[in-house]
């Protein structure tokens, strides 16, 4: 299939997915039992207050009308104003997003690094006792979610051997010279390594908690894919040419074995970002996830809708990038 139609097809499905998310989130809040406005007001509110608010937020119109108004605003970037924080949703979200993105990227780097080493050492030691050891650790890491790993890490490195920080994003005492919300990247750019170190020591535990299950999945899948590739003739051929085992694994088998894992990393990266919701809460890390939970507890509908749409946007974008890079990296598709 030549590249152009695939890209067009992919964009179309992305739009459908986004639209689907918008419809579902919009409907869930309004159609499900319980009046959204009543949920938001403190218990003592009178009927008059409820009526007034309904008119203000346009809840008195039909669902479809409300949806159309809301969609037209969203397309123009206006996500409405948050009820509990009384600020435009977009600003709130954009202010907190960098923290979550940085955390997810660090987690991804950790996961890929651990997963890669697990897979390569597993393949290198295949057939030995160590291999079954690696498989077992992989199995355990895989079956326990990030939430449990976070609690374990908090206990181990927060209480027993307090090596890392277990709450907050940066030590409050430090003065922050940052202009953007991307503290980590900016601290690196400004070569303020002391700040970077402090940030990292705050981010390491939550990132590691998120990274362990993903590393296990990558490790298992890549090891399986590597094992299959190792049986193929071109790998055996390379061995007979006199190359060392490491050369054969890294130069011949890995580039082909990594391709299927790439798509998985793309999909799992979006789960990773989703995972920040609870992890940020556990580590009281001021990211988008933490704000999302408060928004739900305060029944702040516009903010909830804004965050969910944004998450969906990130998800579809990441998937699009992964699919495109898969096509470019894989020579067979590139020349289609």
């Amino acid at each position, binding site marked *: 299939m030549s590249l152009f139609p695939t890209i067009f097809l992919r964009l179309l499905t992305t739009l459908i997915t986004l639209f689907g998310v918008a419809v579902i989130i919009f409907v869930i809040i309004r159609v499900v039992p319980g009046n959204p406005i009543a949920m938001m007001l403190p218990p003592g509110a009178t009927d008059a207050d409820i009526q007034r608010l309904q008119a203000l937020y346009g809840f008195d119109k039909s669902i479809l009308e409300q949806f159309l108004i809301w969609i037209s605003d969203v397309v123009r970037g206006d996500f409405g104003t948050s009820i509990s924080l009384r600020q435009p949703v977009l600003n709130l979200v954009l202010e907190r997003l960098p923290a979550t993105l940085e955390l997810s990227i660090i987690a991804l780097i950790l996961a890929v690094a651990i997963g890669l080493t697990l897979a390569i050492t597993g393949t290198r030691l*295949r*057939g030995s006792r160590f291999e079954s050891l690696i498989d077992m650790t992989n199995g355990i890491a895989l079956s326990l979610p990030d939430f449990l790993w976070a609690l374990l890490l908090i206990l181990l490195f927060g209480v027993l051997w307090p090596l890392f920080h277990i709450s907050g994003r940066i030590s409050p005492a430090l003065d922050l010279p940052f202009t953007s919300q991307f503290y980590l990247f900016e601290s690196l750019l400004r070569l303020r390594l002391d700040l970077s170190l402090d940030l990292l020591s705050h981010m390491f535990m939550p990132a590691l908690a998120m990274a362990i299950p993903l590393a296990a999945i990558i490790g298992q899948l890549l090891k399986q894919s590597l094992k299959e590739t190792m049986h*193929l*003739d*071109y790998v*055996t*051929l*390379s*061995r*007979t*040419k*006199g*190359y*060392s085992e490491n050369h054969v694994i890294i130069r*011949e088998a890995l*580039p*082909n074995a990594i*391709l299927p894992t790439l798509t998985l990393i793309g999909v799992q990266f979006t789960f990773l970002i989703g995972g920040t919701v609870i992890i940020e809460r556990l580590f009281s890390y001021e990211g988008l996830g933490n704000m999302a939970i408060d928004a739900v507890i305060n029944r702040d509908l516009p903010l909830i809708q804004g965050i969910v749409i944004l998450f969906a946007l990130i998800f579809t974008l990441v998937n699009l990038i992964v699919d495109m890079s898969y096509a470019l990296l*894989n*020579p*067979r598709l590139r*020349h289609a």
Partner: protein
Amino acid sequence: MMKPFLSIKNLTVSLKSSKEPLLRSVSLDLAAGNVLGLVGESGAGKSMIGKAILGILPQAVEITAGEIWLNDQELLRKPAKERRKFIGASTALIPQDPLTALNPSRRIGPQITERLVDILDWKKDAALARALELLNEVQIPDPERVMHSYPHEISGGMRQRILIASAFAANPKLIIADEPTTALDVTVQKQILHLIADLQARHQTSLLFVTHDLGVVSKVCQHLSVLYAGKVIEASEIRDFFKNPKHPYSRALLAATPKYNDPASSLTPVPEEVIAEVEAEIFAPRTECSHVN
């Protein structure tokens, strides 16, 4: 007889886990410039011998006894790194399945020249020239374009030619062909077999040819060894073998091989008693096998 370039003495290979032998003290010699066929049904262990020589035995299998002499050097006692380099420099493999024998994410050119440059320390352009020369020798149209293209852009038969060119490019002393034409159509197989035979004669390379097809062996090899369950049950010169095979199993195998021009003696199943006899011989205490001359 010329000094054998390859000489295997009582090679025994068995499964690491259950110690079940896959090769039972196999001995064979291959003179320089000669072609030896290894024949047998699947599971007889014929390709295991090739793998043992090249040091690419599967993970679950190990060599428990025997020696492999290549160009007067014993391989099994060599330290791993030295052995790997020595095998890389003096032998080559023609694999069975052309579809998986070329790395799909790399261009064809480097897959031919890399061994010359990395292992044999040739200069880059010498390696390039050698590769182009061999691609011509295997009658590949427009070798420049082929060097730059990816494996998926080339047909199965053509890929097998490239693999043969790549094997001969390093002018190895020994080439092991592991069922090189089993995956090809019969018409393409004929061209490939002729190609291998011509190149072998021209470069005077010793060739170990592994196949299950007695027809192919009769066309390409000068000597053959017949294997059953990891044991060489008969070794002889080609014409003697096809005139009167000595071992009952060899005779039964010949009768079982399909021959379109003689339906009467084609595809007759191997009788039970022959199987019983050869099994008894293999699992009996080690008597010197009379049929090996």
